[in-house]
């Protein structure tokens, strides 16, 4: 078979969609990016092929999320098109029509977690996670790595794959003590069955190209090499840029270009980035050129002239510390699953989740069962209160894609028990869901 040598592009700026008129996630966001990329004439290059966006199906979303109460109520057409665009490029990649691809789409998705009660961090559904589960289900792929280079911690992606040993989630971001969503610390390193398959690299405010690339080269690259994934996906947020209004980093378009060139992802999906004029036209162009194997060294932001973007010594030391932490941690044999479960049949934790955009506070209790043969059944009970209004309570059961048959069968028994419960209405959740990734089935029922 001839090897594809084209870079696929889906540009979906959603020029007719906004969260609200003056929200950062508004119609204007990719306007200047459109102007720059079209004006360059680069889309006439035979090495770049544009595809038409398409809608993702509810089934694609349900393979990843528990949308409360359903997919329809949590998504608009724009969300389904952004996710569908990633799927379309995924198909083109796996069918060898393209060598790599860039879903330059909005709205973004990396803050959307498994359970979705509303919009958090401008995200409702997780485009990359939907892509990964679609490709794994459809093409029988197993090991995938997601590298999130958005300035904000990719907490949604982390949550979705936290217990999946076959998906390596790496996020490089501005330290959670200084920025939304306030997470992404080194201690969050995966559940007992997927330990060190979540790697967080919090970087101090003021990190420049130098520190950004050093963290990639010394932590991310060796971790990827060790994991040896079949596919690498880049959550290509662009808000590490020195002009981004919502964050405090000093990365340039050239830095993003270099990272993209070295990371060489199979698919890149746009995430955040809200310097609509000063960053996005240049960073998007640099990423596209780097993916297409072209020279991006001329993509120099006008704002960069005459200013120094060096990181301070203090920042430098902080970066070296986190790199040192990971070099040490990843250089050792990690404890095994049996050791981490410590003889218990169940790992569970409780936590609160904050939805900034939709002003929701969610409380979760999640659990993963120990199974010697597979990642084990995952369950989560979630209650959410929206503002001062309605609250909802859901119970979700998930069968992993590579579950053993015994666990799969057991999950359906749990479903049976929950849905036929004789408890009085007040003691039953509003909705009960069963997501069977292995069997590609999704069941939902009122409690």
């Amino acid at each position, binding site marked *: 078979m001839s090897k594809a040598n084209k870079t696929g592009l889906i540009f979906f700026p959603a020029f*007719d969609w906004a969260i609200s008129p*003056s929200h950062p996630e508004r119609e204007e966001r990719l306007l200047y990016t459109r*102007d720059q990329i079209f004006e360059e004439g680069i889309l006439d290059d035979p090495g770049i092929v544009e595809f038409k966006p398409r809608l993702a199906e509810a089934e694609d979303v349900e393979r990843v999320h528990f949308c409360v109460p359903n997919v329809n109520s949590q998504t608009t057409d724009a969300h389904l098109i952004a996710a569908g665009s990633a799927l379309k490029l995924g198909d083109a990649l796996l069918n060898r029509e393209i060598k790599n691809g860039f879903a330059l789409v909005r709205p973004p998705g990396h803050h959307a977690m498994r359970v979705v009660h509303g919009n958090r961090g401008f995200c409702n559904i997780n485009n990359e996670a939907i892509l990964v589960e679609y490709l794994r289900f459809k093409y029988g792929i197993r090991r995938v790595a997601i590298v999130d280079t958005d300035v904000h911690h990719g907490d949604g992606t982390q949550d979705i794959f936290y217990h999946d040993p076959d998906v390596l989630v790496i996020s490089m971001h501005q330290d959670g003590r200084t920025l939304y969503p306030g997470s992404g610390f080194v201690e969050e390193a995966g559940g007992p069955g997927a330990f060190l398959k979540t790697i967080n690299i919090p970087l101090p405010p003021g990190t420049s190209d130098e520190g950004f690339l050093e963290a990639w080269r010394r932590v991310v690259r060796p971790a990827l090499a060790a994991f040896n994934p079949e596919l690498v996906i880049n959550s290509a947020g662009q808000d590490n840029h020195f002009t981004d209004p919502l964050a405090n980093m000093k990365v340039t378009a050239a830095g993003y270009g270099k990272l993209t060139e070295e990371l060489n992802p199979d698919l890149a999906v746009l995430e955040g980035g809200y310097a609509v004029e000063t960053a996005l036209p240049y960073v998007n162009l640099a990423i596209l050129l780097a993916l297409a194997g*072209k020279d991006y060294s001329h993509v120099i932001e006008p704002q960069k002239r005459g200013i120094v973007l060096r990181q301070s010594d203090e920042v430098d030391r902080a970066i070296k510390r986190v790199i040192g932490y990971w070099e040490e941690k990843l250089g050792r044999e990690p404890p095994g699953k049996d050791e981490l479960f410590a003889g218990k049949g169940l790992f569970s934790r409780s936590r609160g989740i904050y939805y900034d955009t939709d002003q929701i506070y969610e409380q979760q209790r999640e659990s993963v069962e120990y199974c010697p043969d597979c990642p084990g059944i995952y369950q989560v009970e979630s209650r959410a209160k929206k503002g001062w209004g309605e609250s909802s309570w859901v119970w979700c059961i998930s069968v992993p894609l590579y579950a053993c048959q015994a666990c799969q069968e057991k999950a359906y028994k749990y479903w049976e028990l929950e849905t036929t419960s004789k408890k009085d209405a007040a003691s039953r959740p509003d909705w009960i869901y069963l997501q069977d990734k292995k069997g590609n089935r999704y069941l939902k029922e009122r409690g």
Partner: protein
Amino acid sequence: MEIGIDVGGTFTDGVLMNGGRVAKWEKAETGDDVASSVRRVLEMLLAGIDPLAINRVVLSTTLITNLIAQGKTDPAGLILLPGPGVNPQDLPFAAPAEVIAGAVDYRGRIIEPVDPAEVSAALSRFLDRGISRIAVACKFSQRNPALEEEVIRLIGDEHPRVRTLASSKVSGLLNWVRRANGAVFSLQVADEYSLFVRQVSESLDRLGLKCQVCVLKADGGTVSLQQSIHQPLEGIFSGPAASALGALAAGGEGLTAVMMDTGGTTTDLALLLDGRPLFSEKGAVLSGYPICVRSMAVASLALGGDSAIIVENGKVALGERHGKAMCLGGPRLTVTDALVFLGASELSGRERIIPALEEMSRSVGLEPRVLAEKSVTIFLESLEKKLEEMFAVWEEEPAYRVWQVLSGHKERPRTIVCLGGPAKGIGMLWGRKKGWKVLVPRHAQTANAVGAALAKTTLRLDFFADTQQMVYSTNLGGLHGALEDPLPNLEAAKRFAETLFRQAAGKSDPDNVHSETLYEEGFNIIRGWETMGRIYQIGLQTPPGLRAFLEEEVGSGE
């Protein structure tokens, strides 16, 4: 009455139209001197006709394409002001280029000044190489042409005799490579083209024609012959547009069909959708270089009526043209001969084919009929594949808005319109196989000339305004300026654009002031939480179409 003339590679066809009726048609061989071919056809058409009864002449020519293909062009150079972005060396510019400082950003703001010393140095390097025609292209010059104009002024001050052209004068659309190449080709053919226009004008004068004379454009509209001197590329690739208009004239308003134009060596496929041809999404390509001309999406297949039937490794295949069809006295068996043998062509000469066909049949161990059918099947399968590719491109056109994605499903045509000599036979067989309707215009041979004669004069306006900076720009020869009205909403912006459109239309054609909206977009510029202004982009054009439809209808199958 109207005259339409189509200058093709081999023949120049002309028709005299009386409303929707073809009153007369004439044909002459196209010689090296295109202007005299045009004159000969005009003379024949006008024999016995009062020239004052003619109110319009429209020309469709391949002159520019031929000049460029034959290298009969004057050398031109390119001065580039790229600013930040793609390395200009990676872009397909059609002329030797000098890169200088100076940059404009996406909102038309100057972000780097021009350095006059660099302009001077670039200029002398071009002059040293014997290049005295220079196109100037600055990224985003359609948003602000100031830097291009400055470079041109600097060149003029230093060397008044150097011919220059700014890319913003050529097109108002995004894509500086296409604008730059458009300016380069315009300069390269300018002298030859002016000569052609002068010669044609002289012929018209001698023949007593005082009417409006136009050139057909690639988008099916027309531009006046005089105006085309300044925009010679406007008339390029008008052949497919002429065919499309000819097909529409025969097929009636709102025709949705696949247009098949089969010649001796090639077959062109194009799509007509609800009375309008489908355009290539990005623009035309000339000699391998992308240019800023909107042209129809045409898929070409290297097979035609004269494609030879050959035997390759014991298998039937189609090969190159070696001359006319055998039934017409040609040297080899061709696709046309297969059609004649199968009774799918009106041509005679079946007896001339039989010995050769029988001999070839024996060599591959097939019945003569099976061999003929097989060769036609190969042709039809190639057509089918090409058509599928074409549909795929059409259906995969990018969409940038939610509604565009949702309005997804596109209805495919189920009609074939056949133009050109061998098209009818092939088209009938293809249509039968697909269960599609087949239209064969009565004037299939002269469809192009008919199409040219019935084309409308058109105007297109691409309007951009930025109310934070209070500036606007257009594609109309680089017309731009300061806004007086803050254009508070899209309706106000449209009204302003329509005024500009009417002013421009009034100059060229007073009855041509109606416009339709090609696209319209208004964006709020939000900084912090405040609306600082708005950006509008509006495209207006005269609704394309025909001045009349043909009265005597078509021959048709199924």
